[in-house]
C-alpha cells in the first residue's frame, strides 16, 4: 500500500505538502448513472410483485428472475467500484522536494511519474466553466525547464492555492539546489535560442 509518510523512492528529509485527487464532484455523473442502473433490478422486482404475481408464483421464471437480477446487480456494483477505483487511485502528491503523479488506467495500467521541485519554471491554475467556478476546482499545469515536460493536475480542488503553494515550495527547493537549477535553466535557454535561430533561418 502507498504510505504518504514513506513514499516510493523517498528523498531524505522530504515531507508531504499536498495529497490531491480530482474533486469528488467529478465522480457525480458516474455515480448517479450507476445508481440508476443498480435500482433497475429492484424496480423490476417491485413491478413484478405488483402487476405480475403469477410470474413469481412459478418456480422456473422466479429462479431466472432472481439469478438474472442478482447477476445484473452484482456486475453493476463491481463496475461502479472499478469506476471509483479509477478515481481514487489517480493521485498527485506534492512534497517539499518533488511532485509525484500517479495515474491508474483500469485494473492493470499504472503510470507513476516524478518531477523535482527545483526544475519547475511555471505553474498555471485553470478554472473553466460554471461548475468549476462554483465548486472551485480546475487544472494545475506545471511547466519545467525541459522542452516538452509538463505535469497536469486534473480537476483538483482549490487550484489557485495549490499553484501558489507549489511555486513557493519550488522556490525553497531551488535555493537548496541552486547550481543544478541554474545549469538546467541555462540549457533550456540554449535550446530555446537554438530553436529561434532555426526558425529565423527557415
Amino acid at each position: 500500500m502507498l504510505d504518504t509518510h514513506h513514499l516510493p523512492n523517498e528523498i531524505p528529509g522530504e515531507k508531504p505538502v499536498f495529497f490531491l485527487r480530482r474533486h469528488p464532484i467529478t465522480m457525480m455523473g458516474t455515480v448517479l448513472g450507476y445508481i440508476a442502473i443498480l435500482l433497475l433490478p429492484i424496480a423490476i422486482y417491485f413491478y413484478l410483485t405488483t402487476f405480475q404475481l403469477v410470474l413469481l408464483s412459478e418456480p422456473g421464471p422466479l429462479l431466472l428472475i432472481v439469478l438474472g437480477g442478482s447477476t445484473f446487480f452484482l456486475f453493476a456494483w463491481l463496475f461502479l467500484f472499478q469506476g471509483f477505483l479509477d478515481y481514487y487511485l489517480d493521485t498527485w502528491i506534492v512534497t517539499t522536494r518533488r511532485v509525484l503523479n500517479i495515474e491508474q488506467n483500469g485494473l492493470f495500467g499504472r503510470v507513476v511519474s516524478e518531477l523535482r521541485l527545483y526544475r519547475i519554471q511555471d505553474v498555471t491554475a485553470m478554472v473553466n466553466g460554471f461548475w468549476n467556478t462554483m465548486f472551485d476546482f480546475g487544472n494545475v499545469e506545471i511547466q519545467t525547464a525541459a522542452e516538452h515536460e509538463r505535469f497536469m493536475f486534473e480537476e483538483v480542488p482549490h487550484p489557485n492555492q495549490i499553484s501558489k503553494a507549489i511555486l513557493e515550495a519550488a522556490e525553497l527547493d531551488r535555493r537548496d539546489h541552486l547550481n543544478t537549477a541554474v545549469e538546467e535553466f541555462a540549457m533550456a535557454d540554449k535550446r530555446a535560442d537554438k530553436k529561434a535561430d532555426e526558425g529565423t533561418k527557415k
Partner: protein
Amino acid sequence: MIPIIWILIAWAIIMVIYLLMTLLTVNTMMRFGVARPGTYLSTAIFLGVIAIVLILVGAFLISMDWSQSIDVLPSFGSAISF
C-alpha cells in the same frame, strides 16, 4: 424442458468469473491504495454488499426444489403472443 439445476450451474460459472474479477479489483485497491481509513472502508462496503446479495440469493436457492424442470420456449411463446 430443461432441469433448473442447469440454470444454477450456469449462474455458478458466472459467479466464479465474477469473484475472480472482484479479487483482482480488491487486490488492485489493496496494493496501490493509500494506507488510509477511506481505502479500507470503501473496500469493506464493496465486499459487504456483495456478501449480502450472495447470502440473500443463497437463502432463496436453498428453498428451491431442484428436481423441477423449466419449459423455456412456451413461456417465451406466450409472452410474445397477442
